[in-house]
C-alpha cells in the first residue's frame, strides 16, 4: 500500500485549478492559430486573434483567461493500492478547491439553486472517481464554465434513429446553442450507457487534446463528419458568422440498454481548461 499525504492532495488540486484557469493548453492555442488561417470572416479572424491575445495576457499576468472560472469538476483515477493518510480524499479535494480559488483570485461561482446565495468558496467540487489498478493517484482539474454548460443536454433517443439520428441531434444542439456558448466550441459527445453515464462520457470526451484522433475508426469518421457539419452551420467565432464554429468534436461510446439510445452533448467554450497531475 502506497501512502499519499492529505496535504499533498490539497496542494496539487489548488495548483491545478490555478494553472488550468490561467494557462490555456498548447493544443487549443495551436487549434486557434490554424483556425485563423481557415476563417473567412474578417470579424471572425479578429475574434480568434483576440482569444490568442487574451491567453497570452492571462498567462503573463497570471490572471484567469475568463472571469467564469467554473464549477470545480475533478476526475480522479485512484490506484487501488493507494492510501490517503491524514484525512479523507474528498475533503482534501474540497480544501484544494477552496485554497486554489482563494489564492488564485478565481471567481467563486457555486450557489444555492433556490436562493442563489453563493457558497463563498466554490465548493462543493463535482468529483468523478474511478478505481484503477496500481499505486498512483491521477487528478484532473477541469473548471467548467456555466455559459457552455447551459447549452449542453442529454437526450434519450429512440434506437431506430440510429447513427444518422445521433448525428442530427448533435448538430441541432450546436445550432440551437448558437452564439451563447462563446464559439468556437469543442463538442463532447457521449453515446450509450444510461442517462448519467452518457453525460459523464461526454464530459470525459472533452479531456482529449485537440488534434487527436479517435482510436475507433468509425467514431473517428463520425467526429470528422460532425465537425464539418457543425462548421457548415456558419455560426462562426462568437456567433458573428464565419467558418469556424467548432475546433473539435470528440465522441465516446459504450453499450446501452436494448430499449435505449442515450446521447449527451457537452459543449465546451474555447477555454478548454484541464490540467492533470499524477501523484
Amino acid at each position: 500500500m502506497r501512502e499519499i499525504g492529505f496535504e499533498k492532495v490539497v496542494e496539487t488540486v489548488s495548483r491545478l485549478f490555478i494553472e488550468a484557469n490561467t494557462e490555456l493548453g498548447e493544443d487549443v492555442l495551436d487549434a486557434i492559430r490554424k483556425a485563423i488561417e481557415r476563417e473567412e470572416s474578417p470579424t471572425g479572424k479578429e475574434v480568434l486573434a483576440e482569444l490568442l491575445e487574451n491567453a497570452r495576457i492571462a498567462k503573463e499576468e497570471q490572471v484567469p483567461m475568463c472571469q467564469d472560472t467554473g464549477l470545480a469538476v475533478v476526475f480522479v483515477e485512484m490506484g487501488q493500492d493507494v492510501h490517503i493518510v491524514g484525512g479523507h480524499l474528498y475533503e482534501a479535494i474540497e480544501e484544494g478547491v477552496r485554497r486554489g480559488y482563494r489564492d488564485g483570485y478565481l471567481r467563486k461561482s457555486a450557489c444555492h439553486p433556490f436562493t442563489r446565495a453563493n457558497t463563498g468558496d466554490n465548493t462543493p467540487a463535482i468529483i468523478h472517481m474511478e478505481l484503477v489498478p496500481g499505486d498512483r493517484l491521477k487528478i484532473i482539474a477541469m473548471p467548467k464554465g456555466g455559459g457552455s454548460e447551459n447549452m449542453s443536454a442529454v437526450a434519450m433517443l429512440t434506437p431506430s434513429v440510429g447513427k444518422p439520428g445521433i448525428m442530427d441531434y448533435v448538430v441541432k444542439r450546436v445550432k440551437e446553442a448558437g452564439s451563447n456558448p462563446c464559439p468556437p466550441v469543442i463538442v463532447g459527445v457521449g453515446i450509450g450507457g444510461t442517462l448519467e453515464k452518457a453525460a459523464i462520457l461526454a464530459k470525459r470526451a472533452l479531456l482529449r487534446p485537440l488534434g487527436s484522433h479517435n482510436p475507433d475508426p468509425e467514431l473517428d469518421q463520425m467526429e470528422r463528419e460532425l465537425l464539418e457539419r457543425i462548421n457548415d452551420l456558419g455560426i462562426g467565432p462568437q456567433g458573428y458568422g464565419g467558418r469556424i464554429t467548432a475546433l473539435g468534436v470528440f465522441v465516446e461510446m459504450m453499450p446501452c440498454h436494448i430499449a435505449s439510445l442515450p446521447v449527451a452533448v457537452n459543449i465546451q467554450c474555447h477555454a478548454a481548461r484541464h490540467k492533470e497531475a499524477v501523484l
Partner: protein
Amino acid sequence: MGEILRLQTPLRDEDVEALRIGQKVLLSGVVYTARDAAHRRMMDLIEAGKPLPIDIKGQVIYYVGPAPAKPGRPIGSAGPTTSYRMDVYSPKLLELGLKGMIGKGKRSKEVIDALVRYKGVYFGATGGAGALLARSVLEAEVVAYEDLGPEAIRRLVVRELPLIVVNDVLGQDLYEEGVKRYSRQPQAG
C-alpha cells in the same frame, strides 16, 4: 467592416441611432455591471414603485461578474456573461431610459423590439476574453448589492472597451445576418 467608432457614455439618442450592426466600437466612460441576481432585485424595486440604486437614464449595463481583483488592480478578468438570462428584465429597463447593454449571445424578440421602440443598442463583447477586456477597466467600485459578491452592481470607468454592435435601432441582428452569410446549410434546415 469599416472604421472603428469611439463612443463616450452616457449615450444619447443620436449616438444610438447612428449605430448599425457589425460596427466596431471602442466605448469609454462609466458603465454599470449587473447580471442575474442584480436584475432580479432591480425588477423587484420597480414593481414596488421604489427607486433603483443607480440612475439608468442614458447608461450602459455590462453583463459581467468579474473575477476578484489581484492586489493593485481595479478588477479581475471581466468578460461578458450570456445575455438571454436578462431578456425578461431588459425591455422594462430600456423603457426607463437604459441606452445600452453589453453581453454575448442572442437576445429575445421582446428585447430587439424594445431596442427599436426606446432607441437602444446591444453590444457584443468577446466571450472568453476576460483578461483582455479587464485591461480596459480603469476603475471599479461596488455601488449596490455588495452581498451578491461577483453579482454586485459595480460602477466601472472604462477606456476603449472593444465592442461590436449586435442589435441596432432598426431591429437588425448581427447573429442572424452573419450566420446567413456563412451558412452552407439548406435554408430550410
